[in-house]
């Protein structure tokens, strides 16, 4: 798959869809295209976040450490983005992501992503919208949970 196909794919991801076309292409061009074998770790809990990953192909599982050992909390696949929030806050990764199948990703470095967002106000607003939506969802979830607990 060449650069043009990557750009095509990126357009379908809401997080990147509002970025100007030339910038989308630049984002792809500046990113690394990486292959992970099954079992290889993409991000590890505790490491500092230095990149976001877009899955192009394959499946990866998200796990978090707990008292009963590591617990798989999610599985991610094609066109999903990993770790895009962590790169805006200087905090360690909260989960580990491991390839289940052979996984192909686009690794967008923190600097590249932030720079692109800085150049694209529309993209920044889209990003805020997505994050705000998540906050809304989380809050609602919390209210539901608290209400349920009572």
């Amino acid at each position: 798959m060449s650069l043009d196909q990557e750009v095509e794919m990126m357009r379908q991801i809401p997080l990147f869809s509002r970025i100007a076309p030339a910038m989308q292409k630049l984002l792809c061009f500046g990113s690394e295209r990486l292959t992970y074998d099954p079992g290889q770790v993409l991000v590890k809990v505790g490491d500092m976040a230095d990149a976001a990953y877009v899955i192009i192909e394959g499946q990866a599982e998200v796990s978090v450490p707990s008292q009963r050992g590591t617990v798989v909390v999610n599985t991610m696949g094609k066109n999903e983005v990993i770790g895009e929030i962590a790169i805006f806050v200087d905090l360690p990764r909260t989960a580990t992501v491991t390839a289940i199948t052979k996984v192909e990703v686009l690794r967008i470095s923190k600097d590249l992503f932030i720079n692109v967002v800085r150049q694209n106000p529309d993209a920044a607003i889209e990003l805020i919208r997505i994050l705000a939506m998540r906050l809304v969802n989380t809050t609602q979830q919390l209210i539901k949970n608290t209400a349920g607990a009572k």
Partner: protein
Amino acid sequence: MERSLFGYIIRYSKRDQLLIVPLVVASMVLYFLSLDLPKTIINEPIQGRRFPDPESTVSFLGIALRLPEFIGGDWRLFDGFVLERMPYLFALTLAFLLLIVANGLLKYQINTMKGWMGERMLRRLRYALFDHILRFPLARFRRVKSAELATMIKDEVEPLGGFVGEALITPLFLGGQALTALLFILYQHVYLGMIALGMVAVQAVIIPKMRRRLLTLAKQRQLTARQLAGRIAEVSDGIVEIHAHDTSNHERADIAARLGRMFRIRFEFYQRKFMIKFVNNFLSQLTPFLFYSVGGYLVIVGKLDIGALVAVIAAYKDLPTPVKELIDWDQQRLDVQIKYTQVMEQFMVENLAPRTLHEVIDRPLLPQHGKICASNLSLVDESGSKVVDGVSFEVGLDAHVAIVGRPDSGRSELAQLLARLVPPSSGTVSMGDIDITRAPEAVTGRAIAYVGPSSYLFPLSVRENLLYALKHRPVREAVYEGEELREREFQLREAARTGGTSLDIGADWTDYESAGVADADALENRVLESLRIVEMEEPMFERGLRSAIAPDRSTELRELLLGAREAMRERLATLHMEDWVERFDPARYNRNATLAENLLFGAPVGKAFDIENLAQNPYVAQVLEETGLTGDLLAVGHQLAGTMVELFSDLPPGHEFFDQFSFIRHEDLPNVKAILARVTEFGLTRIDPADRSQLLALPFKLISARHRLGLIDEALEGRVLEARRYFATRLPGTLRHAVEFFDPTRYTSAASLQDNILFGKIVSGQADAAQRVGGLIRQVLDELGLRPLVVKIGLDYQVGVGGARLPVADRQKIALARAILKRPAVLILDQALGVLDPASQSVVSARLAEHRKGAGIVWVVQRVDAAEQAQHVLVLERGRLVEQGTFDELRKRNGALNRLLKEG
């Protein structure tokens, strides 16, 4: 060294000077004869004075012993050749020619001997000055700039060498010559002689007077030139400060002002110099005027014969030159005397170390057991204050001692006193039974190793820097044969004549015994061990991996590394990681390498095929043209330029993406856009050569796998392969050594060790490939036992001026390794770990303590708590030893150590 130049010259060159004197006297005699002969030639054969009739003959070269009448009158030893007028003329002229040749040969001999003598004296002087530098007290180096020392030894004493040859011979020779000419003239005619004498006297009085000012100027010139050298060195040493504070223009102004002053001095100098020359010339040309008029008158009135007048004028022709040169000589004498005095002022230093201190001693008695005793040790600094004040202590020679105190407590000075780098103002230090304050350096330099807060590395390889501490004396003499032996003997003779050392720099100075090993191999192992102690083994291994092996290394080494290449290939295969490294294959295009690398398919040697600028190489252009690749690459370049313009046009200038990702710099973007416009207008084939070459250069940096632009398809790859083969087979002989082609079965000397072992590119699309493959290389090298070998190759790394090509911490670690390599009885560390990061500080200090178990360490620690691992602690306050004991003892007491601990 003598304070006066002439004292120095006479003391050291008396014998040589005396050897030349007879030659000068002989030359004078010949000179006189050559002046006299023309008179005879003109008067006798030409004017025919002794040839009254055509058949007259004279005797030529007759030798008669004039004896008084009462013994029997003249006694003719040899009747001579009886010659007629014409043969007599030729005989005399031939004799004249022979005289000239003989005199010329004598002069040649005199000049050569003078030159030799001068060079010998210059050599002696330079060596003596350098010897003085080595014997300067350390404090001296705080006041004198190194560049000024260098200028003095190199430039300022240079004219001295020239002068030494002239010092005594010239006045003798020129004076003799002038005197001969003068006597000759006087002998011919008294009046004419008086005229000549008078003019010479005027010259000799006026000229030196006019020259007095020149001497002052010369002195100023020397000082300003020396200071300029010093300032230039300062600028180069302080270049960081200059740029950090935007003071480059201040420096420019300073140097400009200095150059201006120098110009002013020279300006006046030249003005006066040429004025003097004018007066001088005028005076010497005034005399012939007088000769012609007065001499002519005398001839006309018959009081002088023409032959004599011609001879007088000929003699006079030779008179002004020696007189002028004599005056020059006098000028030079004063000038050189000034230079000598000024240089001596800088080198006449009090407290010069005595010669005996630096004597070569083969196996000095070194302290083995016993104690380090300091008794009443004091040091007064330049300002007169006591920085170390009456310190006395006694600790075991094998103890680990910490010295603690505030920065101004005199802790560093105490360490330097113990290392005998500075002689104490009073008091003594002894180690074992040896008085360290008076022991020769052969003892202190081997028994003690001192590492200060920032150590100096010589601009050599890491290995040579490490072994530097073992080079106390030539251990194994070099063996010379034939021509080399004769040369060595010549050098030894000359060194002996000029007070130089007879020690041979060509010998092997590395003292294995001092490092406690038997031979070179064992020493290498000791070096590795020392490196491990200071955490430098791994960095050196890394260096080794990244460096190319020197061409003179054995082929055996190459074989071993080829073995590693094979082992690495197998290892990748067994781990199913073959496709993590794309190997170089002569028959395949490597998609993880640049197009340039694919085309060249080898490691460039030298600059001709520099991979960054491969497109500019004329032979490459020719290959592209002849294989028909130019058109293809032009099309790729065109597309690439289009993509770059599309991607980067909207970014502001200076954006970091240009550096990271772009093939085109921001400032070139408008130009590239213009080229693209021209391509649209005229088509790719019809743009001008400059545009073409710009577009053509772009694809050379393309890496298909990384850039994923899909610009190089399989067909193009095939044509690049063809060009690769064409490139190699048609390579002209002149370029054959500019590239070393990749060959799976051969070691590429021009490439790094790592590149040779991989023999390919780590693929860019495989996550974590670089780390894992790097790890595998290490594993493989470890398993093959090649790790030490790689470290040894790393040790060939050149550290640069003052070690500047190494990080500061690494420099310090190498200095530490150098210090422990010579196994000193006492290792003195004066805040030696300060520049290391905290983690490696604790690792290195623990390892050092472990390594030196049973051998002494005196440790000036920066952080007081670091003293905890020492067996004995000395606490200093304002130069006085206020507390000593074990760390625990002192901590319990409410004393100085506790105060320091509280301060943190």
